């Protein structure tokens, strides 16, 4: 395989314009789009994830990388062969009913997108039935629930229960997050996982793929 170090570095630097040029050059010189995606771009995003976790990279830098990644994926998507997918999985995300806070939820959404997930962000104040409709509609495998207020935490429980009653519980992993939430609350309401911040949320989602 050719040396694509420059593509890796450019993606990590979040330089989208340069990245598109480099990816096009690689394609022009005969690089395989699937290999480019899976062996160059996604591993570069993994490096970004690690550096964010260690504090070396800051959130805006990670997001710039994610944006550049998104553009590169858009270029490669039409060129991928049958059976090759650009998506790591489908995620439904939203802030539960009664809660209008979305900064954390938006960050999680962006981080998951940058990790290769196809994310449907329902927004804020989302009723359980809307989560259920979206799971069906998108055929999602991960549902991420957000709440900032202690008063809306019970709605997380209600949403998880509604998903169970809808018969979709086996299809999805449910993860929860937000300032007042912790692992024991997640366990208590029957969620599959809890993440403390955006970086670990996307890492958690990835762990369900294996």
């Amino acid at each position, binding site marked *: 395989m050719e040396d694509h170090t420059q593509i890796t570095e450019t993606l990590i630097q*979040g330089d989208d314009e340069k990245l598109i040029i480099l990816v096009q050059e690689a394609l022009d010189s005969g690089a395989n789009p699937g290999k480019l995606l899976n062996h160059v771009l996604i591993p570069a995003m993994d490096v970004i994830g690690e550096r964010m976790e260690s504090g070396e990279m*800051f*959130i*805006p*830098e990670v*997001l*710039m990388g994610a*944006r550049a990644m998104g553009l590169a994926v858009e270029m490669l998507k039409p060129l991928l062969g049958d059976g090759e997918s650009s998506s790591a999985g489908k995620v439904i995300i939203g802030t539960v009913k009664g809660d209008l806070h*979305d*900064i954390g939820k*938006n*960050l999680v959404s*962006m981080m998951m997108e940058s990790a290769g997930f196809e994310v449907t962000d329902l927004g804020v104040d989302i009723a359980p039935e809307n989560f259920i409709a979206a799971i069906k509609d998108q055929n999602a495998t991960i549902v991420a629930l957000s709440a900032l207020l202690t008063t809306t935490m019970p709605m997380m429980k209600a949403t998880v229960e509604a998903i169970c009653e809808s018969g979709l519980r086996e299809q999805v992993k449910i993860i929860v997050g937000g300032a007042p939430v*912790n*692992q024991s609350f997640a366990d208590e309401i029957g969620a599959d996982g809890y993440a*403390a*911040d955006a970086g*670990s949320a996307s890492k958690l989602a990835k762990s369900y793929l294996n």
Partner: protein
Amino acid sequence: MFKRMEGFSENDIDKIHNAVMEVLRDIGVAFHEPEALEIFKNHGFKVEGRTVYFSENQVMKALDTVPSEYTIFARNPENDVKVGGDNFALLPGWGAPFIIDNDGEQRNAVMEDYENFCKLVHTSKYLDMNGFLMVMPSDINPQESHLDMILANILLTDKAFMGSPQDRSKAVDSLEMVSILWGGKDKILNKPVLPSKVNPVSPLIYSEEMVGTLIEYATLGQPLEFPDLILSGTTAPITLAGTATVMMAEDLAGVVLAQLINPGTPCVIGGNTCATDMRTGGMALGGPEAIKIIHIIAQMGRFYGVPTKSGGSLTDAFFPDMQAGVESALSMFTSIAAGSHFMNQSCGILAGFNAMSFEKFLLDEEICGMVRKIVTPVEVTEESIGMDQIKRAGIGGAYITFPETFKKCRTELFMPEHATRGSYETWAVQGKKKVHTKAHESLIKRLDTYKKPDIDPSIEKELREFVAQRRAAISK
């Protein structure tokens, strides 16, 4: 200006000034050095025994020649330090016989500790210059250790530094060594390169050692700092107004002598004055009185047109714990916010000056960085208002995705190196490290990556020869 923290009104300042003048006129100040008494006599001052009396005219005339701003030159010109006006300098701790380690154990400081502190000063983003006697090295004869400390100051960092005030001969040695560094005594005459402290003994005394030091530094026009340490209720009245009166009288007496010797010699007045702890008779360095007097010092300095020193990261605590953090941050913030100019003790000091802590040094640095950030004027331009961003984000948009945020995410905001932020889980997974533990870890890294700055080998050789020759003479 919002005046809640200011100690004195203008009317109060006049009253204090009149009281200071009455003290200098009627009680006087003792100078335990005949040469100083001769200088005062020759300039027409009333001298009885060792006591010198000052008229208001004599004091105000002397104050006329004190520079309100000056530059201290470093061997690396990038590290020159401006003092006075809006400029302030932060320096490390001073005078500790002990080290308190990361386990809270106290031990005697040694020369290696002194050298390590020099390395930290050299690599500090937030300290402007080095001091002297950050710790007293117990493994070297105290009659010689000033030579080693000055040599370390010169060789291990290219920032400016201070000289020994311990006695006259050590002041002379310090000045000889910087003369070698700068290429001759004529090169440093009236060029500030080696400030020194001169401590009055409160109330109203200058010892033989201190006056000898003052004479040596002033003769070459080197800056003098009068770091008065009054304990309210012990060496001055228990009230802040009375304390301020005694402090200013002592400081101004020293300033006058410096100006008589060499008019224009830079001076800095003020100190680390604080309350007496009435339960033990010791210092209450981290108490609110010590904070309040910082404003008073700055006000009096502005009144007399003399730059001031105060505060630093002062604490009575014995470990870099919450007490140390609170007291240090209040003291450091107040010193800078009040408008003081010269802050020794900005990093590392613990236990009411008795100990230095490497970990606290790094944590204090972080406070210094925060305070510098707080007092930096806010830039207001079209770009900094960012109306185009505000319009782009509209209602409910996310600025964190904007290229403007990306571009400035490392430069616009203060990023602590040791303070914990983020989530409890991350903190827990990483071992629930308290801030002093983090400081201890980065200390090791920082010392490992230190690189000694270059110096002309012939200068280093000459300095080492001087030290060897003086050491031989002293130990005879």
